[in-house]
């Protein structure tokens, strides 16, 4: 059994936000059991050994739940497989000798910090614009203190699985953030907590989304197809409904 493989990489290198970037070619000896990020670790070891600048890329948990890793791999955010993050992509998904193009999320609202690392603070500002929720610390609240029907809880949970990675924005031809905002608005509008702010929250979040420079949704469905958590396109429908209702109520 062959346990090593060689891939050719075309990696986007950009010194900082203002600099012009360009693709650089690298060749990496890797093995099929490595994750895509581990393969990048090998590349960086090589670069450091050769006295060159390592490639900057975002990563944290490396178990597919934190939303830090990004990378557009051969044109697809998080690579060729569906419903996984880049850290869960393994080199066995590629063939020996493949050429792989790796670039950052590209959107004006996600400026490149360096190489493959982009600034996703615009997502944080959208969340912040939605307002706060009060959470009592100390002892855990009684489990069934607030009753929520199972189907509603499931639907809210499905939306809540969004890890805020930004693949939706990177896949959208309009760089629209509506799948992300839709997931957050769907989750919050379904649950009994925070109903008083339901309408003002959706208007504030959409205003912030527009101000950050994200595009408008044209329902192509690219976002949902690329989402590592499988957030459905229906959350955008819910967002449209919540926003329109709030606006017609004069919010």
């Amino acid at each position, binding site marked *: 059994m062959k346990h090593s493989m060689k891939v050719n990489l*075309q990696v*986007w290198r950009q010194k900082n936000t203002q600099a012009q*970037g360009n*693709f650089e070619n690298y060749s990496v000896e890797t093995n099929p059991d490595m994750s895509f990020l581990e393969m990048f670790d090998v590349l960086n070891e090589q670069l450091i050994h050769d006295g060159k600048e390592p490639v900057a890329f975002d990563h944290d948990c490396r178990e597919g739940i934190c939303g830090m890793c990004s990378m*557009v791999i*051969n*044109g*697809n955010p998080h690579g*060729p497989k*569906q419903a996984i993050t880049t850290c869960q992509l393994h080199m066995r998904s590629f063939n020996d000798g493949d050429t792989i*193009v790796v*670039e950052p999320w*590209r*959107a*004006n*609202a996600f400026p*490149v910090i360096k190489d493959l690392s982009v600034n996703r603070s615009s997502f944080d500002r959208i969340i912040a614009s939605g307002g706060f929720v009060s959470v009592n610390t100390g002892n855990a609240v009684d489990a069934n203190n607030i009753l929520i029907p199972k189907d509603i809880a499931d639907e809210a949970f499905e939306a809540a699985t969004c890890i805020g990675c930004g693949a939706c924005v990177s*896949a959208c*031809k*309009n*760089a*629209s953030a*509506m799948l992300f905002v839709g997931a957050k608005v769907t989750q919050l509008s379904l649950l009994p907590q925070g109903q008083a702010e339901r309408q003002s929250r959706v208007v504030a979040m*959409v*205003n912030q*989304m*527009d101000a950050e*420079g*994200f*595009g*408008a*949704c*044209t*329902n*192509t*469905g*690219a976002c949902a*197809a*690329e989402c590592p958590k499988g957030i459905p*396109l*229906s959350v*955008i*429908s*819910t*967002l*449209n*409904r*919540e*926003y*329109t*209702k709030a*606006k*017609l109520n*004069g919010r």
Partner: protein
Amino acid sequence: MGVLSFLFSSSIGRKLVMAVTGVSLIAFLVVHCAINACVYFMDGGATFNAAAEFMAHNLFIRLAEVGLIGGLLIHIVQGLSLTLDNMKKRNNKYGSSPKRSNSTWYSRSMGLLGTILLLFLVMHLKDFWIVSRFDAQGGLTETKTLYHFMVEVFANPVPVTLYVLGCISLAYHLLHGFQSAFQTFGLNHPILTPMIKSIGVAFSIIVPLVFASIPLVIHLGLIK
């Protein structure tokens, strides 16, 4: 304007305008298609001419026509400005295109398909609408009915080809637009949404097919 200003400023409001005007245009297509299909009565265009005559001189229809043109203009202006704005949201383009397809080409090309339809409409309105609505342009007479105009225009293979191409653009524009409008309205239902999608596909095939068939059958002399 006040509370309704969001319809021309916010991303969702602007999409809502596209959806409302789009659905009105779909409703218009039903009427237009039904009248055109009257040529298949094979009565030398008598039923078709009668229907066209009714549409041209009924006060209610003429008033609705003003609304239709208004809606069409808003759909065009808002559509173009949205497309141009959306194009400005990613200044640095990707160096690679998706290996795994994540959307249909026509859903990504609504601006282009719409522009082709706009060019088609200019030709189409000049061919038929102007002559039937404005008497100064010659107008319709007993011996020069709208059906006669059709036979005259479609004798030439060039307009026949352009009309068929226009109908193909319409089919793809509708294939995405029909269901997209209901998504924008916020309508999302486990039973209704799949139904709307199926109706949308059927509508996008049948209606442009009926439209495209008429120049062809007239050109080939299949109907009298």
